[in-house]
Every structure is written in C-alpha cells, then in structure tokens.
C-alpha cells in the first residue's frame, strides 16, 4: 500500500436524517484527521444526501475510513475517488472591492481568463462566481488579491468518477463493506 499522504476525495451516499452528518464527521475527528473540505447536498432520489469529503491521509487510512463509514446504518454507499479518475470541481464566491472603472476592468479581464462569472454588481464591489479545480480557484484568488478581497466562500470539492462508473455500482469490496453493516 502507498503510505504517502495525499488528498483523497470520499463520496458518501447517506440517508438524510438529523445526526447523519455528525456521525460522518465524528469518524474523521476521532482519528484526528482534519477534513480539508466537506459538502453535502441532495441527490436525485428524495431522502438521500451525497456527502463529498476531502481528507489528507495515506492509502491504508482512507480505506480504513471508507470501511468505518460503510458500517454506519445510515450510509448507503461509499466511494474513494482519485484525482486522475474523477472529475473534481468546487465553486467559490469571491467579493472584491471595485470602486473605480479601471479596477472593474482589470478584474473582468482576470475572470474572463478563468471563465468565471460576475453574479452581483455593487457600486463599490463585485461578487464573482468561479468553478474549477482547487488549483484553478487558488490561482485566480491570488491574482484578485491585489484588488482587495472582501470575503470568500467556498463549497469544497465535489467529485464524480469519470466515464460510466457510478457510486451505485456493486463490486466485491462493496459487498464486503456491506458485511460491515452487520445486519442480516
């Protein structure tokens, strides 16, 4: 197993009930892993939520986390996604100071390069929405710093496997995980 620490993305499909997020977050904090980012949003089937977590750990640790997560009754499915095999995106809203025309034009040039959008125009500020990988967003943020960033808010990473694979696919590992659910 690879013992090098890196960022892994976990996709977790859960039943949408009070406390389920606490259960998921607890497993990370118990082991002292800091969650780099986490986001939870509804899916197409009512009553289920998909949680995406990015955590920095090694391969053995991420698989241990995945099995522990799979044991929870409220967890339906777990996938470990790796960088190259998955599409990873995050959304960031950035509020920048923009009180003169020159500044606004400068900002617009930057966001055109990064294919970001302006979602709110104020007299002395702009709100920019940018979608991309974390690297892309960080690069854009760096350039905008010169203009004075007022605040930022970031969704954290969501990810899907590339190609036809989905989180609903069954395989031997997932069958084994289900044993971990300890219910038969």
């Amino acid at each position: 197993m690879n013992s090098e620490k890196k960022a892994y993305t976990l996709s977790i499909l859960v039943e949408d009930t009070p406390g389920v997020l606490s259960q998921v977050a607890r497993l990370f904090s118990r082991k002292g892993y800091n969650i780099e980012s986490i986001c939870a949003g509804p899916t197409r089937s009512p009553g289920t939520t998909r949680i995406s977590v990015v955590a920095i750990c090694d391969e053995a640790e991420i698989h241990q986390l995945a099995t522990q997560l799979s044991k929870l009754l409220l967890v339906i499915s777990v996938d470990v996604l790796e960088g190259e095999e998955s599409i990873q995106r995050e959304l960031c809203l950035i509020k920048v100071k923009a009180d003169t025309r020159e500044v606004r034009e400068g900002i617009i040039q930057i966001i055109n390069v990064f294919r970001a959008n302006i979602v709110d125009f104020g007299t002395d500020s702009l709100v920019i929405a940018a979608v991309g990988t974390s690297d892309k967003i960080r690069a854009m943020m760096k350039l905008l710093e010169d203009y004075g960033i007022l605040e930022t808010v970031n969704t954290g990473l969501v990810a899907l496997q590339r190609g036809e694979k989905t989180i609903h696919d069954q395989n031997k590992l997932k069958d084994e995980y289900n044993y971990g659910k300890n219910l038969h």
Partner: protein
Amino acid sequence: MKVKSTVAILECLLEQGVDTIFGYPGGTILNIYDELYDYQDRLHHILTAHEQGAAHAADGYARATGKVGVCFATSGPGATNLTTGIATAYYDSSPVVFITCNVTENLLGKDAFQEVDITGIAMPITKATYLVRDPETIPDILREAFAVAATGRPGPVLIDFLKNVTAPDVLIDYEPMERKEHIKHGRLQALTHRIGWDIKTPEPNHEDIRKLAEMVQNSEKPLLICGGGVVRGRAHEQFRALAEKIDAPVAITVMGGGGFPGGHELATGMIGMHGSQASNMACDNCDLLIAVGCRFSDRVALDPETFASNAKIVHIDIDRAEIGKNVRTDHHIIGDAKRVLELLCEMVEPMEHTRWKNFIFSYPKRVAYEDKPDQLTPQQVLETIRQIVPGDSIVATDVGQHQMWTIQHFNFDYPGQLLTSGGFGTMGFGLGAALGAKVGCPDKTVLHITGDGCFRMNGQEMATESHYDIPVITFVFDNRTLGMVRQWQNLIYHKRFSQTDLDFAPDFVKLAEAYGLKGKRVTNVQELEDAIHEALEWGHGYVVDCMIDTDEMVRPMVGGGQPITNFMLI
C-alpha cells in the same frame, strides 16, 4: 389495532422474547414504568442500585445467554450513568438494547432539567442510536434496534424516547408480528433490500475460503487464534473441529475464552501481553496465522510491525472494518465464523504437525507459581475454587491482576462461561455481569472474581444481589492495593507507588453482612475450602475475602509495544 404507545413498547419487547429487564426509573421514563406495572407477570424487572450496574447486568445477561439484554434508564444522569456500561458492551460486541427517555419535544435542546443529548453522547459507543419523536415509528424502530443489536457483529444500540411520545393519551397503530417477519417490514426491509441482502445469512465468498484451504494445506507450522468472534458467533464446535482436523495449536485471546476448551491438548493458553510462553513463541514462529474473530488489539499484537513476522496472516472476521486495521494481513475472509469455519473444515484434508507441536509445547503453557508457606497465593485460591465448584460454573471477572490470573488458570469450555471486560477494561463490571448471568442462567453456579479495587467500584450491587436473592459467590483478591497498577509501578516506575495503596479499604465481610449477605475472610487454603463449601450449601449471596500478598505479580509479561517474545517477566 390502536394501543397506548407504552403498550406498544412493551409488546415489542415481548415479541423479541424478552422476559428480563434491568433498569432504574426516573422522571421522564415514568410512563413506561407505569405501564410495566401491568406487565410484571411477563416482564421481570430488576432494579439495580445504580444505572451502571443495570447496564453491566444486561450485558452479562446477554453474554451468558446469547440473547439480547435490555436495560432501562431515565434521562440526564440516568442516561449518562449508562455510558460506561454501553462502551463496555460495545468494545466486547455484546448485544444490548438500551432504552432511555428524554424530555418532551418542546424542551429538547433547551437544557431542561435532566436533559442530555444521549443519542449524541452514545454515538461513538453504539452500533446505532435512535431518537424517537414520532410515536407511530415505535414498533418499526424497536424491531430494527433488536435486529441491529443481535445480528452481524453484535453490539449495543440505544433508543431514546421523548417523553411526549410515551404520554398515556398517545395511541398508535400496533399489529403483533412474529420475529421472523420483522425483516420483511418497515425500515428493516428497506435496509436489507438496500444492501442487497437476502433474509438468510449472507454467504461468505467461497473462493476466499478455497484460497485459505490451500494455504493451510501448504503450511507446516500453522497457528489458530481463537478470538471473541468465536464466542459471540457460538462457533466453538466448528472451531474445535477445524483445529483437530488440521492439528493446529490454538492460542486464545482474553475475549476468546470459552471459544476453545482451555484444557484441550492443542490449546497453548492465552496470547499477548500476559500470554503464555507457548502462545507467544508459537505466534513468533508460525508460518501461517489464522485469526478468527480477533481484532489484533494492542494487548495481543503488542508491536504490529513484528507481530507474526514469519507468517502469512489470515484474518477471518464478520466486520470488514477490522481487516487491516491493526496489522497487515495477507488474506481475509468476511463472514460469520460458524459458516466460514464449517466450509473451511470441509475443504481441508486432515493433517499432522507433530514436530511443530513438540516445539511449541516445549514452552510452558502455564506459569509455575511457587506456594508460599505463610500466605495464600492467587494460584492456590484459583486452584482451590476450581477443585470444589462445578466445572461448568460461569465466571465473571473485573479488571486487573485477578482477571489475568483467572483467565490463565481456569479452563473455559463453552461460550458464555467467561464474562470479562476485555476491550474496554471496565473496573466494576464483574458484579453486575455476574448478577445478569445468574438471572439468565439460574441453573449454573456463578462466580464473581474481583479485586479489592474493583469491588469498591460497584459493590453497591450487593443490595440487588441480596434483595432479589441472586446467589453469586464473590471472591475478592484482597491485596490492599491496585495490583496491576502497582505491578507497573514496580517494574516500570521505579517502585514509586503513587496513589495505589488501598489499605484503608472497607471491611468486606462486614460490608457483605450489612447488605444482608454472608462474608468470610480467609488466609489459608483450609479456610478457603470451608468458605466455598459453606457458600455452595448456603445458596445465597456470599463474599469470600481472600487475603493475598501485596506484591504478587502477573506473569509472564511483555511490555506494551514490544515484540511478543520480549518477556520482561516469565
């Protein structure tokens, strides 16, 4: 059928075959206790002295009988008093359903009197927690909770009812349902359907087992580890059949006691920190290690890096999350121990390993302690007990030196014969567990072996013992110190005995008498023999205070984190 919600709760317990409840009432759970008044003939409630005692009793009941234990407590402090008991059950995979009540819905989260977020607190120490806010969900949740507690890797669950849910004017739909039907209804059905399982026990992967059979056939120095999973899964017969067929020595973990006969010629004794030389040497020298239902805790795999470093390690467990958690394994099989071992046994050919066994058993499987002329030794105490009490007596221990001595010295022959807090190491577990075991198995003699430190922790359960006349014989290894801690101070902390003296302990004989039991202090074998005979004849709760030397030690001993054969004491 419309019934009161409290009726539905108790009827659901009856559906599960529950006849005994351990608990302690209080403000928020009063509605359920009020209903219980009408169910006294069918649900036997045992009122303990403390909620922790009730939790351990329900746990002991479950361990001894193999059924699910049930424990009631009220909100707030009642619920938090359970937590040590819940954790104890969780670490040793014991199936117990804990039922607490909470304040009414409109007070939830307002720090009301005796309100606490017990489902949040219990989350890390249960398989599942349920907060019941809608009375209509009661039957569904209770049925699910019992199924979750009892199946797969067993463990505790906690159900917290809001008080308004149990109010006398709340009527709900309840249809009696047989237990085997539960899985076809409600959320349980949804759950099993979701994970794609049939109602029958899921089958282990045959390919995995075939691979293991091959590894066994190619092995010259196999070793089996009998873990707690063999006991919980009641797979002792299958385990024994396999061990005998492939002629493999068997090391037994603390939780595995009773999974394989301790006196069997293939048994090498306990493994790990206080494991026998035979077990630990076997572990270091084997070429194939098959661990069944064991989680390689830090008390067994003291140093994961060097653990069984000459062997291929195969892990058989029902819980996928245990695989590769503590030690690296070369192969694993996920499934119920009983079924896996049965299949494996069919696939292997009979083998003989005479040379390997000769090597292992050239090391002692038991420590030879010396008798002392003027003092009782722990071995004399245990040997005397063993000779007099029935061989199938159930033994509940607390935690510490006496626990290790007991497990080293007694032979446990069937699952549920040894009740001990192996995972969580809860001092004060023993008496409650012994009471629960005696209630569950009234025909068996039940011994409670404890130390003077542990006995002080939940000794108040003598009140329960006496009130319900539950005849348990308690043996106190009275060395006037916290023995195991003192042993560490002796060996590792340069004899700086910080806060371990207990020479101001109560007079246990008088204490027993104060609770209405009989007690006797013994200082030699003859007195001990007389006391045991008297206790057996008397047939009620009895406390034997055995005076032993303060500096007795548990041997052998390997230091924490050390390679398993680095004995600091032999």
